[in-house]
């Protein structure tokens, strides 16, 4: 990637300058944090890491499954999993919300907006 010069700035011109500034800023940030001294509070106090992690896993599962088994079942499974694992909601409510939301999403995107939602093995 050519840097160019001030006279003829090339494609690498701005990224190079930006990278230099970024290095300086990062050093400044490290220095300022270091001066402050390390705080004793942990990054994830208690078990606060658990729910975001479960959310990430559920998300990845969704992206993975939607290609395999299609939009409708994946969406339903995702909703049930999320509300069951991450939140503790009554089963009846989980079922109602999962079915309702899946249908509404399908109607909005699949039907009205005509998005070719993945059909998976069922298509």
């Amino acid at each position: 990637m050519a840097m160019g010069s001030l006279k003829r700035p090339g494609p690498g011109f701005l990224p190079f300058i930006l990278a230099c500034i970024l290095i300086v800023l990062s050093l400044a940030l490290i220095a300022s944090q270091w001066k402050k001294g390390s705080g004793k509070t942990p990054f994830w106090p208690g078990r606060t890491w658990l729910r975001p992690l479960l959310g990430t896993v559920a998300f990845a599962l969704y992206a993975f499954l939607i290609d395999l088994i299609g939009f409708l079942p994946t969406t339903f499974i995702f909703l049930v999993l999320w509300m069951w694992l991450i939140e503790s909601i009554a089963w009846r409510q989980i079922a109602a919300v999962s079915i309702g939301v899946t249908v509404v999403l399908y109607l909005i995107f699949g039907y009205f907006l005509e998005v070719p939602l993945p059909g998976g093995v069922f298509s």
Partner: protein
Amino acid sequence: MGEIFDIFQGLANGFQIAFSLTNITFALIGAILGTMVGILPGLGPSATISLLLPLSFKIGSPVTSIIMMAGIFYGAMYGGSTTSILVNIPGEAASVVTCIDGYQMALKGRAGPALGMAAIGSFVAGTIGVLGLTFVAPPLAEFALKFGPPEYFSLTLLGLVMATLLGGDSIIKGLIMIILGLLLGSIGLDPISGAIRFTWGFHMLQEGIDFVTLAMGMFGIGEIFYNLEKVLKAELVTRKISHLWPSLKDWMECRWAIVRGSLIGFLIGILPGGGAVISSLVSYAVEKRVSKNPDEFGKGAIQGVAGPESANNAAASASFIPLLTLGIPGNAAIAMIFAALLIQGVTPGPFLITEKPDVFWGVVASMYIGNIMLLILNLPMVGLWVQLLRVPYSILAPVIVLFCCVGVFSVRNSVFDIWVMGVFGVIGYIFRKVGLEPGPLILAFVLGPILERSIRQALLMSAGSPAIFFTRPISGTLMIGLMLFIAFQVFRNVRKQRQREKA
């Protein structure tokens, strides 16, 4: 005189466009969605507009989609106060200070007047803001026609720096976000030479990172993951809301607060990097200073609700000015609207008003209508919206995630984009965790191409001499303004640190 006449003619045309059935429907949808996300904590206007970006591909006309998105943006300013007053949690960031006195009023059984005054103040200020937009934007755009690459570079730089310095608490962190945003924006084809940068062999990256994917990841998914850490629970202080119409005494106490808030909001909203959040903070400070009994603040002073709520609405309308006249978005939510315009093939800038008058005047006229809709939605119907606070976040969160997934998929029908969005979501979560605000990053990502093109064109113009940014009068003035601004901020920070060391 001719110019004033042009403005009225444009506005009349705009009303014709805005009153078409489609546009008025979408304005209403925008107002309703805006009020909704304003009320719901944990979901802000930026996230919502990013959620709807894929939709703007499907809405054929640029006017219609921008009318809706604008409605979401200023509608959220109305809704935000409701949650602040009734639950003591800000419904969205610009209503943080409303919690202080609004909640105290609710505790004293004066939730009604607080909600009423917030809605009326919002309406007055919103309308003043749109009036300002109507009369300030056309001459400003004409002035901006004189801008060349050096002026654009200086202005963009000023906007970016002001956005960081005004927004967050740490200047270094803000600047880091800006640099990261600019670097992310440089992935893909170089706008001038066509060389390929930072794709590491992924051909999917040649077109650059898609704004929709980035915005939905950072704002939609990132925010959800972050909110998962804590349990958001909305507990209403009161179910009974009566006397929405404020008493004569309240009126007398608030009229100047509303006027001052409107002016403060408008002026801060125009500034690149300024916006609703900052203006509400400034307004609160001003109200406390001019009040005859400042001790009342924090204990339920109605001016502490009226002022900031007016300011954030005026600022929301005013922040359309730099977008529609200069093509430079001043904050994250406006950056999303900027992206939506680009998706529709409309490049905002000084030529917009003359070349696409339908878009400009249609959107402006719709904002007058939208404010009236919002007044009705938020004053007599506020009780209905309060029910929304009963929908638990535990149900809302997975639904928002799904909306993001399907939305991002629909742009290019690609599951790959869902993965990319997820990665940005995790990054956005970690950023929030370590106190890095993603707002400046999004702004820088959008402004990156403008910044790069203008600096390189300017240097070509001047044969490599950076003096060009200082010797041209407009650019020079902007640069001096930038330096004064930085000097002032550094001075203030040093003084603050000294005081802290003494203490």
